[in-house]
Structures are given as C-alpha cells and as structure tokens.
C-alpha cells in the first residue's frame, strides 16, 4: 500500500464573506496524502486549519465567497461533483470527520449506540439491527464496553465519549478520517489512551488520518508527516523526523521552540507579535513581520521549494 496517493489537494481556496471584508481562511493550499498515512496540520488558532478540514469535506457555512481548487481522492476529482453526489458518494463513505469538541456534541436524547449506527442506516440503507450489530463491533474496536451501547452520552466519561465520536466516523470504514483537535479537552492519561487507539486503528484498518491540532507535542504521537499552516497557507510540509527535530521554515522552527518540553533542558521561547488578519493579509511572505531571518526579498510572494521530498515556502531556500 505504501506510497499510493490517496488524497491530492491543489490550490484549494475557501474565502468567507463577512461584514468587514473577505476572510481568506484557506488560501491556496496544496498537499498530498498517501494511503495509510497520517499527516498532522499544525498552526495557531485562526490560521485556517479547521476551515481546511471543512473545505476538504465540503461542510461549508452559508457565507462562502470563494470555494475553488481541486481535490482528488483515489484519483477522482471531487470538486466537480454536485452537493448531492458528494453527500451520497463521498462524505462519511470515503472520508469522515471527528469535528472539534465532538465528544460534547453527541445527541443527549439518543442512545450512543443508535448514534453510531445511524451513518450505516443513512448511507448504506442497512436495517437497524444490522447497523446496531455493526456499531457493537465498532465499540469493541475503539475499546468501549459492550453494554455502553444502550447508554446516553451524559453517562459516559470524556474519554469514552471521544471514543464514541471516533466509532461514529469509523463505522462506515472510510479511507480517510479527519480529526479536528481530538484530544484537546482530555486529561493526559486519556489523551495517551486515545492516541494508542488511533495508532492501533491505523495499523489494523489501514486508515489514513489528517490530524488537525495546535498541540505540537502530542501531534507527534501519530504523525508520519506534518504540514504547518500560517495565515491561511501551508508554509512547510515535512516528514515527521525533519519537522520535529530540525524544521525548515523559520515559523516552524519558532513554533517548535515555543513548546515546553518535559525532558531535556531547552528553555521554551515565544514568538513576538501576532499572526496577520486574514481579511487583508500582507503581500509577500505572511510571516515576514515576525520572522527573525527576513531579508529584502520577503516582500515578494515566496516560492515553494522542494528539499529532499519536503516542501517549504520560504525565500531562504530559493
């Protein structure tokens, strides 16, 4: 399976119309994802990472100004599909998502088993008992005790609810699961448990993952590769080894240096300044204003440079 491209994204844009102007939340994003690979998308809040997830799954709000680019899944172009085709053929069948705070978004008046069974009934038209049996199997897979199938969300702990949300996305056995901050509200040991589970799913079910997070330390638990997002654009895509030890882009390096570490003696540092507004982002490199290594050329739009299979959008490597 190695190195077959599962998902390819070309120049994806998602702009929103607001009272103050157009917010360029996702502005020309390119990356590819191989089968059975996990890529993490890291960045600060407001950099457009959740919008990227929504753009891939076409879960769009009403105030979209521009939605363009190409998305290929297993070689098939998806942007040409109409909304109904996309819903019937792609969403939750080929690609599913565990949205941010999914554990708190479970329906309080439905039993969790029914909620996990629902995608099977909607998308594959299976009977309820059959769907419930499938849900039961998924519960075993994600480590939720069998008898929880008849419980309600409030009877479950945070970690168990997160597992249920994961089971909901897994039940249709999609090729790709997008996880948006899957562990941000969980305790340390519960986080570790969820990541153990994700690793197991990845190796047993050959699922691919896009993990969207601002928590760089825990992102390394799942990452094969990492994409760094800044102000609506991806500034670096590197393999995990490069990214976590010596990232190329100055922003990635500063971001990495700001992570407090439990082991070792490096003292964390912070990044001076704030990310630019996405309404009128600066021309040229968007990080230039905060970059310690900026020089004259940074006022021009930086090119994307290939470095041993990794991509970096920075004039330093031109």
């Amino acid at each position: 399976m190695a190195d077959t491209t599962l998902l390819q994204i070309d120049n994806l844009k998602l702009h929103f119309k607001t009272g103050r102007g157009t917010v360029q939340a996702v502005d020309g994003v390119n990356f590819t994802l191989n089968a059975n690979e996990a890529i993490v998308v890291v960045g600060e809040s407001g950099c457009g990472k959740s919008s990227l997830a929504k753009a891939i799954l076409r879960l769009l709000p009403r105030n979209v100004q521009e939605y363009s680019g190409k998305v290929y899944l297993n070689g098939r172009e998806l942007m040409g599909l109409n909304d109904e085709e996309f819903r019937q053929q792609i969403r939750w069948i080929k690609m599913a998502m565990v949205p941010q705070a999914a554990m708190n978004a479970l329906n309080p008046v439905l039993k969790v088993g029914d909620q996990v069974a629902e995608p099977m009934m909607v998308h594959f038209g299976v009977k309820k008992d059959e769907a419930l049996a499938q849900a039961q199997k998924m519960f075993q897979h994600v480590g939720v005790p069998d008898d929880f199938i008849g419980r309600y969300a409030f009877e479950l702990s945070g970690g168990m609810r997160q597992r249920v949300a994961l089971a909901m996305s897994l039940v249709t056995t999609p090729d790709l699961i997008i996880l948006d901050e899957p562990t941000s509200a969980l305790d340390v040991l519960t986080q570790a448990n969820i990541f153990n589970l994700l690793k197991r799913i990845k190796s047993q079910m050959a699922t691919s993952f896009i993990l969207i997070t601002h928590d760089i330390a825990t992102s390394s638990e799942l990452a094969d590769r990492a994409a760094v997002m800044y102000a609506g654009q991806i500034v670096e895509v590197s393999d995990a080894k490069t990214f976590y030890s010596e990232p190329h882009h100055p922003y990635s390096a500063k971001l990495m240096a700001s992570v407090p570490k439990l082991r070792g003696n490096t003292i964390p540092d912070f990044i001076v300044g704030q990310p630019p507004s996405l309404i009128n982002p600066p021309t040229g490199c968007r990080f230039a204003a905060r970059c310690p290594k900026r020089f004259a050329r940074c006022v021009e739009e930086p090119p994307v440079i290939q470095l041993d299979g990794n991509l970096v959008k920075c004039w330093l490597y031109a």
Partner: protein
Amino acid sequence: MTIEQDKVQQKIVMPKNDKPAKTDALLSVQDLRVHFELRKFGFGHAGYVKAVDGVSFELRHGSSIAIVGESGCGKTSLMKTILALYKPTAGHVIFDGKDLSLLKGGEIKKYRSEVGYVQQDPYGALAPFMSVQRILEEPLLINDVKDPAERAQRIAKVLEEVKMTPVNEFLPKFPHQLSGGQQQRVVIARAMILNPKLLVADEPVSMLDASVRVEILKLLQGLQEKYNLALIYVTHDLSTVRYFSERIFVMYAGQVIEKGEVDLLVNNPLHPYTYALLQGTSDPDAHNSTVMKEVPPGEPPSLVNPPAGCRFHPRCPKIIKGVCDIKVPPEFEPVPGQLTACWLYE
C-alpha cells in the same frame, strides 16, 4: 481489616484537637477536607463527594508551587477553598496567621484583596460589556480607592506591568477586540491591581496557543519575582510546570500522593501514578508515533466511595497485594525533599 479502615476515616473526619498548628508561612493548609453532600430527590442523604480529603501544605512569601492532577482529582475544589469560595468541612486554611473559616464579612473582603485569581478561560472571565478600563477600575472602586487620579495611575501602572503598552490604546478596548493572549494579560492585570500577596492561577494558559503560552508564563514568573508573590499554579500539564514552579504537588482522587522539588519529581518520579502521568506526557519527537504508551488501565475512582487503602491500587501496576488494597499509605521520604504516599517505599 475494613473495620480498621473505617475507624481511620472516622478519626480523621472528626479530630479531637481542632486547633490549627502555629505557622509563620504565608499560607498554611492543614489536613484540609472539603466534602459535598449528595442528595437523593432533594432531601434523602446519599453520601458525600470527598473532593479534597486530607491535603496539607505550606507556602512562604515569594515561593511557587504547582498542583498537578487530572480533572476530578479535587484541584479546583482545593483552590476554591483557598480563595474562600468554599468552606472547609474539616481542617484549616491559615493565611497570614488568620484562619479563613473564622473570617467575617469585611475581613473576607480584605482577604480577597490580598489574593489574586487568574482564571482559566480569559474570555469567559472578562465581562463582554466592560472596557479594559472599567474591568480594571472595578476592584479599586469596590475597595474604596476614591481618588480618580490615583485609580487612573494604578491602572496605567498595572497595564505597563503586564506589557500592554501604549496603555491609552488598550484602555477603551473591549475583550472581544483583544487576542487571547491580551485577554489573559488583562485578567492578570486585574488580579494584580490590588497588590496581592498570593496569586492563584488556574490553568492560566491551557486555552492559549503554544506560541503565547510561554510568554504568559514568563510574565507570571516575572511578576512573582518582582513583587515577591506567592504563586499557586494549578494545571494538568506537567511540561509547563518545570520552568515555572519550585515544588510540585501531584493530586489523585482528592489526596496529594507525591510532592517534591520539580527537578527531583520530574526526573525521578516515585509514585506509580506520577510515573504514569510523566509517561503520558508527550514531547515533540518523531519516534513517538512508532511506540505505544504505557497507560494504567481504568479511570480515576468515584470520590463518593473511593477504594480502600491506596486510592490508586486498582490501577497500579506495582500493587503489593494485602497491603496496598487494605492500609492507607502514610507519607514516606525515600529521597530528601521528595515525599510520596506509597507502600513501595516503606
């Protein structure tokens, strides 16, 4: 054996000698217990939630401690009791020589002016309809600072202190016009404006981005050193504790199970639970994705009926059968400066 256990519990809940011990520390917490009654249908008694169950520590002027534990371990209840928002069921909180539970109306107000509180969610902690100026002016008005010029001067000073300059630009702004980091600075400024002696920070950076986290923690640390503040830092994130506290207290199911100097505890955890917490905390490292983490099975116990003996024993990989599940472990000090309640170190 269970009967003996019951006796121990009873003896502690109703101590005969209920006089607080003398202390010269700024804050002294002595065998503190905070229990909440559970009721059935509104009246029937259904037990107690023992949120804090026998916690003791001392804090001197200018020193900082971190309280680490998972949600539901009682760290917030402990903190709220220290802030005099909850009343202790048993035990004492002594601040500057005075027992908090004996304070009356005006004295509580004075006490609260000496303790600053930095909330977890800065946006939730700031009133959305108040400007930065009004937010910072309110504590001064409540505490009878009548001269407007003095108020303005103190507000300007505290904003400079939290590095929100130029001050005049920020004064008329509302919370939604500020970034998360700036909001948290306003919260810190508000906690600092009455010149407190003690600052209690409840997960002050958990809602912030990694790039600002360190900035806020460094700011807190700078203020602590400059004003010789005592600081209680409540968190679940062990990786930030290292740089910003002197001592760590690890809580599990309402009790402190290990305490010690930061470097000792992080480099050589004694209690199996502390070890598990440290193992569970990730550092950015590509190697992580290739290995599974060691996680103790199960979840923290209910605080209504915590397990007998050591409360961690049902999940502990190093359990000594016949000891850990029967007798409550006392504190041992196998390493000078590092204490743990675990039978392994008897």
